[in-house]
């Protein structure tokens, strides 16, 4: 979780990622950010997030995103 938050913070230092759960709905993250995040996750966690998982539910909060990473690495 810490690594993930670091990745996110690096992109948008001004956002409170611990508590925000409308990252997509409020246009905090745009498509470029999402791609960058996915690339980072790929190198940090060795988990590839497929395109079908790029839905608001998975990217609206850091928690959700972390849950996604866990689920994918379990499978």
């Amino acid at each position: 979780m810490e690594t993930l938050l670091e990745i996110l913070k690096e992109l948008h230092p001004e956002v409170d990622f611990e508590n925000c759960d409308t990252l997509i709905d409020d246009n905090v993250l745009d498509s470029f950010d999402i791609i960058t995040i996915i690339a980072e996750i790929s190198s940090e966690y060795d988990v590839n997030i497929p395109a079908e998982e790029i839905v608001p539910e998975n990217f609206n909060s850091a928690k959700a995103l972390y849950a996604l990473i866990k689920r994918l690495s379990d499978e």
Partner: protein
Amino acid sequence: MLFASYGFILFITVLFVVYYLIPRRHQWKLLLGASYLFYYFSGPENLLYIFFTSLSTYMVAVKIDAIQKNQALFLAANSGRLSREERKAYRALVKSQQRKWLLLCLILNFGVLAVTKYTNFTIANINSVLRTVGSGTQLSFWSLALPMGISFYTFQTMSYIIDVYRGKHPAESNFFKLALFTSFFPQLVQGPISRFDDLSKTLYNEHSFDIQNVNRGLQRIMWGFFKKVVLADRILVAVNTIIRNPDIYQGVFVFIGMLFYAYELYADFTGGIDITIGIAQVLGIKVKENFKRPYFSKSTAEYWRRWHITMGTWFKDYLFYPLSVSGPMLKFSKFSRRRFGDGLGKRIPVYVSTILVWFTTGLWHGASWNFIVWGLLNGTVIIVSLECQPLYDWFHSRFHVKHTFGFRLFQVVRTVLLMSAIRMLDCYRDVPLTFRMLGTMFTRFNVSTLTGKALMGLGLGMADYMVLLVGLVALIAVSLLQRDGSVRNKLAVKPAAVRFAVYYVLIISILVLGAYGMGYDSSQFIYNQF
């Protein structure tokens, strides 16, 4: 059949009446019949194409679904016996089976689109290459008509099949329902490009007559006709005069033509979408919005989140993301970061995807270099503005204007002008001419040539300009009102007399001021052939 035709108005009138008279469980079947009838009017041979797309997509979706169900059954039956690795391997096997089917479906349908839309473009390019190398042989063009709306319905059904593959929703088991999703006539002409999980929520339901809903739908239809018939078709005359005579109209007139075309395109396209969504609303069906006051955007990226929204999200979900997160791309990303460092190296892969997506978007708009260059320019503008971000940050740290009205206005005007300038590629005959003409805006910008007489020479009279001015004020006023909620909601709480007056004024203006009938060029919706 075009929206702005007597035949179409008769068609929807009859449909509306019959729709609410028949038993409700048959309503969606009526829509299917009406959609095929509508399509029949556009050319009977076109029915074959849309039927093929519906059938192939239906069958593949059912197949993919069946494989999915088998997998679930197998896994459940062998729940204790398989190790985690074995399960994983089994899943991968199933996925690859499904992928084969998906690819088949995509290749078949995009193949039809490619052949009908791009064959002659390809031949023309081969021919010009042949000419350049001095070969005497020339390939002859195919006489293949582009089926109406094929770009739209192909994209719509392909989003469906991909979503089934991704497990977003199950396959539709009733072929006729899928056929309706493919051919739903109001959006066949120019979108929006709907998603199955969204449209199916209301498309097949039983709808009882709801006067509120019907009223609002009709209001929206009329507003759409007003924009299209009174404004867009009127200003089109002046636009055409300018762009068809590039030898005469240069410099300041290119600028005028650019503004007029921006007006025309907005009124025509959003008007058409209003008609589409309005028709659906009368039928009790909810179609996704396609525009969100695009000319109020402060940047190109924002503009493309607000203009032709369903197309933008389609490219994002089904091309940009898959491309960006694909194995090769992630590998390239790692390579790039090693090579160019953490800053630029991180962005380069995203830019590569962006350019590819915009190339495709341009190609989708039309089989010509004009559109390809247009798409690439859009991508370039977006990338350049991202690369300039540090510059902006520096500027804003020095000057605290970011939140002033003046600065935001500047951003909006800049974005609209930039988008409109790039849009001129729609208009001029070829790419070099477009750039030459845009160039004259800087080299021969002579305001003194812009006399009243010259404006009258564009094919519009004083009265026409007055109508366009009043129309512009109305468009801006409605957009401003929309910022805090639907204009029709606000209208609904007004007294009946006010509501009637709005209807009255709209109907009379459309009938009297509309640029339709003999003596007017019957112009098609601009997006019709895309």
